[in-house]
């Protein structure tokens, strides 16, 4: 279902910056996250993980662990229901391997014991007989003939015969005549790029508390971006009916896509079922790094042709992505997004997903897009440099706009790229002087955004307040935005509304908090629910007044007679109608269950200044400005927060963050000391400029904003560093050893 924009609407609350409803609990340390709850008789669950990158599991002997005093349950892969469907079987195998350990850290067994030290001791008593197999962690190596095969028989029909069995799918997008396009070009640049796998780096490790009773009923508390998906998956893996499993989402300490998947929850349920007691599992930080879902690792080739005037004549990208040991579809998003910012006559993208002995990739803000766009935006920058063109003007010249046939198929409606580029061009940052060893980089970025299945319920309480129940975990202030939209639509003050996240038994299905969908889709559902409640309130007023319901309209939070013919009655406010609701027909509520369509794409442009120490390769980020189209910023402070947070994650990825595997295929930096996320002193202020080009598919014009901000930083930083050192960088992260090596080879 798609909505249309109310172009004339004057907002009273949307666009303000009230305090979030969950704020006080969070600043007082009272909010309950995944690991913060306990249950009487609770056991501690811990997971045994493969120390090998690739190994056959010949046998697992759990008898000694089971015999240890204080151990109440031990489970292995056999305790989960074998799934037939590929998608769920991969999740099942990832939660507890049955026949093969596919990466360092792959779960193979678990225990529940009376305390943590007993659980730790029990893990040591589980005897797993492994037969080590050759492994591969490099994406290019995994594509070569003769590479160790991670999983055979997983290729989709799209993959041409003769490719390595590690290649699981092939995707292609584009239009126009590439050869003709390149012939028209005055300059063609082609370059190869690599990017390392990065981790979302949420500060809260995965945690859950499971309680499964003998009668098959179960309750699960967990930090997740989507408790409905958790319910679906756990019910399948445990062989239960969805109605018997109630999942409650805790407060969530960051996710960024990494908590849209299930790792420990089915294991905790299986342990609880066996032990007959509640089981809590909390991952350690090194488990988070080793065995959750980092990004893909990539290797890419990009070729772009340009006229002397800056017009792009043709663009081509070849992407090799590895999402780890299980097939993933992220390369499709990379191949779709690569050239999405440009209006091109000839464009072609080709992508493969390749299996490697790494943990299965999970989403991370705009999955797949940052890498491909990094490569494309780097080549555009190089072309501008070589043709002596202004990089912003050149992007403006080629920018996609309303009516552009996008590189991935659809034709764009109203989009904000041109406005965003123009805002960047006008900004003082763009013309600010630079010093020695300094460089400025810029990049455009794009993300599709998503709507999806959504349910919201709204109750009008008799005291004139409103309760909203939604089903999407709030990772960055979305309850405030939902309350704002409810208040806006109902015409009551923000503080009369309280929005909560309901459990899986209380609402219809809600897709994950992902795809930048919550403010867009849940917001739309909330507006619809409010309209349903308003219709009921108008009907109540009509009944009280003895006029037709159609003769009543809702203005500024009150029912009023529509026009002079309807009769003369003083307005009845929401509170007045609510106060008599129980005597005029019963409780008043509104709800919406729908599939939200019409999520508008979102573009961003980032400008970045760096200084590089030529003797050490150390990069200092001096200045950073984010420009982004938000459609309509419902709560601008949290929109800015998304822009700033995403930018800084991108900065970390560009400069220092990477998964480092040793020759033994084991992860060498499974901790925050060596997986280097940016710290406060690494950064300048992150300036933000919000543009509002309304999304025609949302009543208030809202676009998702959460993912786009991580897309541009990779190229913005790479372009800035390349200018600062006078050398084109083509590999991320640009850690000091890499920069220094590049400089010394330049001589």
């Amino acid at each position: 279902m798609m909505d249309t924009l109310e172009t004339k609407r004057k907002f009273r609350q949307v666009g303000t910056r009230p305090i979030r409803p969950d704020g006080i609990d969070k600043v007082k340390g009272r909010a309950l996250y995944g690991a913060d709850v306990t249950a009487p008789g609770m056991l501690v669950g811990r997971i045994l993980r493969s120390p090998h990158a690739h190994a056959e599991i010949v046998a697992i002997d759990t008898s000694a662990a089971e015999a240890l005093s204080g151990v109440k349950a031990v489970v292995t892969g056999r305790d989960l229901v074998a799934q037939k469907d590929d998608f769920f079987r991969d999740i099942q195998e990832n939660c507890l391997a049955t026949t093969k350990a596919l990466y360092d850290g792959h779960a193979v067994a678990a225990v529940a014991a009376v305390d943590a030290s007993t659980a730790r001791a029990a893990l040591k008593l589980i005897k797993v007989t492994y037969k080590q197999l050759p492994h591969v962690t490099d994406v290019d190596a995994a594509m070569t003939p003769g590479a160790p095969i991670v999983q055979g028989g997983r290729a989709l029909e799209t993959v041409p015969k003769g490719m390595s069995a590690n290649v699981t799918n092939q995707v292609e997008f584009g239009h126009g005549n590439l050869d003709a396009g390149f012939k028209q070009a005055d300059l063609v640049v082609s370059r190869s790029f690599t990017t390392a796998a990065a981790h979302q780096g949420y500060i809260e490790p995965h945690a859950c508390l499971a309680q499964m009773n003998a009668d098959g009923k179960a309750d699960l508390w967990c930090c997740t971006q989507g408790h409905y998906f958790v319910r679906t998956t756990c019910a399948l893996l445990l062989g239960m009916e969805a109605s018997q499993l109630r999942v409650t989402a805790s407060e969530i300490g960051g996710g960024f896509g990494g908590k849209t998947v299930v790792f420990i929850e089915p294991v905790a349920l299986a342990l609880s079922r066996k032990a007959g007691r509640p089981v809590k599992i909390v991952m350690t930080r090194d488990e988070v790094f080793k065995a959750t879902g980092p990004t893909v690792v990539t290797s890419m080739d990009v070729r772009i042709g340009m006229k002397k005037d800056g017009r792009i004549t043709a663009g081509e990208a070849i992407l090799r992505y590895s999402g780890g040991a299980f097939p993933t579809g992220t390369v499709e998003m990379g191949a779709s997004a690569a050239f999405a910012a440009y209006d091109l006559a000839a464009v072609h993208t080709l992508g493969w997903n390749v299996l490697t002995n790494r943990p299965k990739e999970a989403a991370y803000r705009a999955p797949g897009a940052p890498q491909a766009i990094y490569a494309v935006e780097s080549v555009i920058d190089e072309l501008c440099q070589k043709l002596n063109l202004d990089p912003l003007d050149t992007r403006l010249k080629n920018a996609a706009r309303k009516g552009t046939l996008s590189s991935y198929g659809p034709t764009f409606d109203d989009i904000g790229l041109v406005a965003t580029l123009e805002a960047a061009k006008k900004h003082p940052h763009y013309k600010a002087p630079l010093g020695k060893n300094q460089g400025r980089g810029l990049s455009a970025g794009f993300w599709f955004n998503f709507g999806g299945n959504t349910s919201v319920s709204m109750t009008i309480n008799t005291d004139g307040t409103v309760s909203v129940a939604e089903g999407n975990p709030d990772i960055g202030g979305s309850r405030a935005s939902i309350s704002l939209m409810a208040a806006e639509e109902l015409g009551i003050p923000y503080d009369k509304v309280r929005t909560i996240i309901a459990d899986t038994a209380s609402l219809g299905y809600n897709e994950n908090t992902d795809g930048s969908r919550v403010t867009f889709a849940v917001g739309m559902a909330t507006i619809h629910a409010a309209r349903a409640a308003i219709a009921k309130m108008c009907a109540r007023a009509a009944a009280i007044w003895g006029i037709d319901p159609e003769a009543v309209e809702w203005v500024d939070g009150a029912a009023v007679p529509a026009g002079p013919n309807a009769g003369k009655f003083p307005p009845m406010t929401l509170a007045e109608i609510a106060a008599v609701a129980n005597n005029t027909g019963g409780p008043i509520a509104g709800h919406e269950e729908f599939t939200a369509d019409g999520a508008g794409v979102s573009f961003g442009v980032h400008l970045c200044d760096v200084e590089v120490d030529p003797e050490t390769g150390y990069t200092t980020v001096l200045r950073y400005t984010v420009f982004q189209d938000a459609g309509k910023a419902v709560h601008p402070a949290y929109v800015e927060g998304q822009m700033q947070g995403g930018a800084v994650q991108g900065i970390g990825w560009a400069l220092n963050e990477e998964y480092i595997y040793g020759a033994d295929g084991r992860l060498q930096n499974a901790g925050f000391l060596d997986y280097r996320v940016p710290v406060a002193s690494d950064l300048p202020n992150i300036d933000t400029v919000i543009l509002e080009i309304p999304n025609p598919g949302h009543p208030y014009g809202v676009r998702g904003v959460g993912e786009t901000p991580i897309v541009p930083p990779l190229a913005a930083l790479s372009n800035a560093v390349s200018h600062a050192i006078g050398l084109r960088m083509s590999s991320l992260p640009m850690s000091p050893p890499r920069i220094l090596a590049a400089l010394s080879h330049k001589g």
Partner: protein
Amino acid sequence: MQYAKPTTAAEAARLLSAASGVTRVLAGGTDVLVQLKAGMVEPDLIVDIKHIPGIRTLQAEAGGFRIGAAVSGAELGEHAALCAAWPGVTEGAQLIGSKQVQGRCSMVGNLCNASPAGDAVPGLVAANATVRVEGPNGTRDVAVHAIPASPGKTTLQKGEIITSIFLPARAPRSSDAYLRFIPRSEMDIAVASAGVNLTLDAAGTITAARVALGAVAPTVLLVDACAKAIIGTKLDATALAALEKAASAACKPIDDKRGTIEFRTKVAGVLARRAAVIAYGRAGGKL
């Protein structure tokens, strides 16, 4: 596991020498607790030394300073006289970890953890500091440089603990500096580091120098060739180039997740040069 908090050094030594299993001395715990968490060590006995008198105090002695073994980085940084006399030593100690880690970490813990990358160590070696060791066989004073044996290992004998560090009196026109390279601005382990300690004559000529390099060999390096390169000079460009070259030449680093051999070798030279310039300026020299 047992936890003990002896109130004399002799008692600590007794407990440690009598223990049959794995033991750990606990000062600030910022290495010990990390190792416990990772399951790297499972000690049978932990001896918390923080209740030994004098172990947490810092006082003037013989024109220099005696620093109790468990004095934290934050406490060092708040001691104005110490920071003025030994800015290189104290900046090394204060680079360790975060402000939270600073609330607990000790220089002696840094030394005894015996990581080649310990930030307190090059400064102490350049300073020619000594430590006082107490053990079953009594008390001895040992040069800091003699403590690390190999990564993770010290030359201390079973039952021995360090109770204090001694920084000697300063000749006039002396100062020091410490620099490390990390990929972020904070919260990282040194990829390469250099401590330089200098004395000048009235004319600004270097009369004594000690240069120590960290994270470029299994243990901290005291590089005579670096000292030679600058003694007798006013740290002119030729001397600085010679210093840099000597420092790089002394490196015997490894390739690992934190840096390459090539990178460490080059950057150690750069840091030695830069630290020398800072120390020279602090000692009153004009470049």
